[in-house]
């Protein structure tokens, strides 16, 4: 075996290296030294992120084509890393709290392992590696959801999460077994695509694709498969909720795109085009309608993230490199916007224990900076023009309408109407903070340095990502540079 192949897996090696350092440090250092663990991990992780941004990806498929780190894969990993870095900053206060002291190492270790799994999901070009990545991303997450050992809600959320996760992976595996029957004896994405383009579309193939869609839809919390989301988001520790809502979702969306275009691209219009339309419409609408009546901020963010997942999936029906680029940009903007909102929710929860929307009434009188950041995050999530959220929605809509089909125009129209509905509930938060005349329920406080840094990064992202074209250009360029390797398998099929 050629061990130089491991050189192509640079991002994975970096994350595994950080994991090993944290693990050894956590195991062998003394009580006093353990205090340095959060800053050590965060700094190492920041360095690793910079390395992934800077070192160019080698687009050579390795391990017999099972793994490939194209520029697009590398870019999405770098984007996810930014999200994880912000999550690390946000969680410092929680990790340093009294009840967390003896297991702060485990938090970082489990988080890094899930990130490693997501990297594999993104880079896998064979279903075996993909499933291993998917499971190593979702199983440690269940342990993380159950992390607040003293609180019952955390356990309830964890049992709901693990049961639905296993159920969905059973469905996914069953779907894959039927796909295997059509694949000509190979589980490589490219081989399956070739086998499907030759064969005829049968009912069993439809069932298989529907099962795969359902299995991945659970991870992304698309609408008929979203029922776990609100409960898990509410019960999990808030740092984990923010991780679940952005990083895990971003990785799953990218993997979804790769699998459906590379593997099933040949049967797009026969098999899964209409399925995906229905799922997208249901996701956006149901997410919006349920978000309106939420009073708990974490549940509110859960339904908001469901409807955002619907917008993300729009990139997948655009089935072009523009769609993938817009989707990556959307993920990046969504990461900063959502983490900005979560930074505020977390800071307030850890300082005062308050989580309800009513508690935010009159927040601007006591905590103007937090109110300001929350308002920007809400504006960005709703897609109000000068902020990044507007540009990400705009670009994803353009990439979808670019194909010119009437059905896609209707889809975008429905998404647009839903954007207006979503304004209502995002502005409810803004109204509670700025307009509601009640006496403020939250004392004025000064948040810790790390979460303030996280908040500043998020706010800077919200304000500048839309205005600075570099980020979008980076996403599109990386997709274009991967053209030969990522999309070549399907592009001829789309044309033909």
């Amino acid at each position, binding site marked *: 075996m050629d061990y130089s192949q491991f050189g192509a897996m640079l991002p994975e090696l970096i994350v595994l290296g950080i994991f090993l350092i944290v693990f050894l440090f956590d195991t062998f250092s003394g009580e006093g030294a353990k205090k340095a663990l959060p800053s050590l991990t965060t700094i190492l992780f920041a360095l690793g992120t910079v390395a992934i941004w800077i070192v160019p990806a080698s687009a050579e498929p390795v391990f017999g084509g099972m793994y490939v780190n194209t520029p697009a894969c590398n870019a999405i990993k770098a984007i996810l890393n930014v999200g994880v870095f912000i999550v690390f900053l946000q969680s410092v206060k929680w990790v340093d709290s009294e009840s967390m002291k003896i297991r702060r190492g485990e938090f970082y270790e489990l988080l890094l392992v899930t990130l490693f799994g997501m990297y594999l999901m993104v880079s896998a070009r064979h279903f075996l590696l993909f*499933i291993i990545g998917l499971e190593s991303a979702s199983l440690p997450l269940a342990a993380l959801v159950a992390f607040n050992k003293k609180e019952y809600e955390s356990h309830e959320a964890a049992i709901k999460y693990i049961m639905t996760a296993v159920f969905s992976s059973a469905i996914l595996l069953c779907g894959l077994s039927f796909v295997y029957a059509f694949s000509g004896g190979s589980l490589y994405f490219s081989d399956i695509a070739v086998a499907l383009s030759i064969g005829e579309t049968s009912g069993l193939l439809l069932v298989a694709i529907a099962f795969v869609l359902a299995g991945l839809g659970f991870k992304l919390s698309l609408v008929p498969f979203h029922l776990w989301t609100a409960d898990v988001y509410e019960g999990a520790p808030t740092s984990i909720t923010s991780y679940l809502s952005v990083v895990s979702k971003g990785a799953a969306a990218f993997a979804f795109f790769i699998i459906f275009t590379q593997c099933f691209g040949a049967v797009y219009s026969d098999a899964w085009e209409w399925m995906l339309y229905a799922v997208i419409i249901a996701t956006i609408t149901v997410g919006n309608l349920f978000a309106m009546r939420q009073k708990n901020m974490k549940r509110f963010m859960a339904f908001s993230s469901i409807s955002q997942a619907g917008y993300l999936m729009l990139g997948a029906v655009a089935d072009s490199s523009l769609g993938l680029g817009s989707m990556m940009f959307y993920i990046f903007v969504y990461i900063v916007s959502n983490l900005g909102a979560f930074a505020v929710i977390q800071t307030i929860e850890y300082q005062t224990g308050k989580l309800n929307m009513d508690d935010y009434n009159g927040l601007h009188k006591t905590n103007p900076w937090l109110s300001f950041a929350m308002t920007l995050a809400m504006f960005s999530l709703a897609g109000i023009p000068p902020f990044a959220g507007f540009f990400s929605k705009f670009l994803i809509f353009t990439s979808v309408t670019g194909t010119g089909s009437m059905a896609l125009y209707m889809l975008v129209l429905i998404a647009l109407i839903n954007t207006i509905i979503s304004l209502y509930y995002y502005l409810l938060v803004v109204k509670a903070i700025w307009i509601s005349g009640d006496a403020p329920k939250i004392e004025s406080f000064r948040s810790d340095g790390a979460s303030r840094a996280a908040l500043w990064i998020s706010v800077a992202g919200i304000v500048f990502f839309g205005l600075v074209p570099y980020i979008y250009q980076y996403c599109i360029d990386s997709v274009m540079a991967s053209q030969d390797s990522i999309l070549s398998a399907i592009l001829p099929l789309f044309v033909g």
Partner: protein
Amino acid sequence: MDLSILWYLVPSVIMFVCGVYGFVTRKNLIAMLISLELMLNSADLNFVVFNRFLFPGSMEGMVFTLFSIAIAAAETAIAIAIIINIYRAIGNTDVREINKLKH
């Protein structure tokens, strides 16, 4: 007697449906977990059967099954750990009593 592929696929489908039915109707977390195992095993059986009958030249389905069994074991381990936590918190493993998070 010549066994055709249907002799394997029909039991596999029955296992899968039983698993789904059990997952939906059982009230005990352990029973739900057993139902999930049924579903996973049905997928594994499918892989092996398709490999044996359709593509006897290669081994990919069999290898996939081995990995899938290992993953199922890991899933069960984590689920059981969480169920034990639930048991410590509320004294039983009845899903009807795990209902605090809903609005």
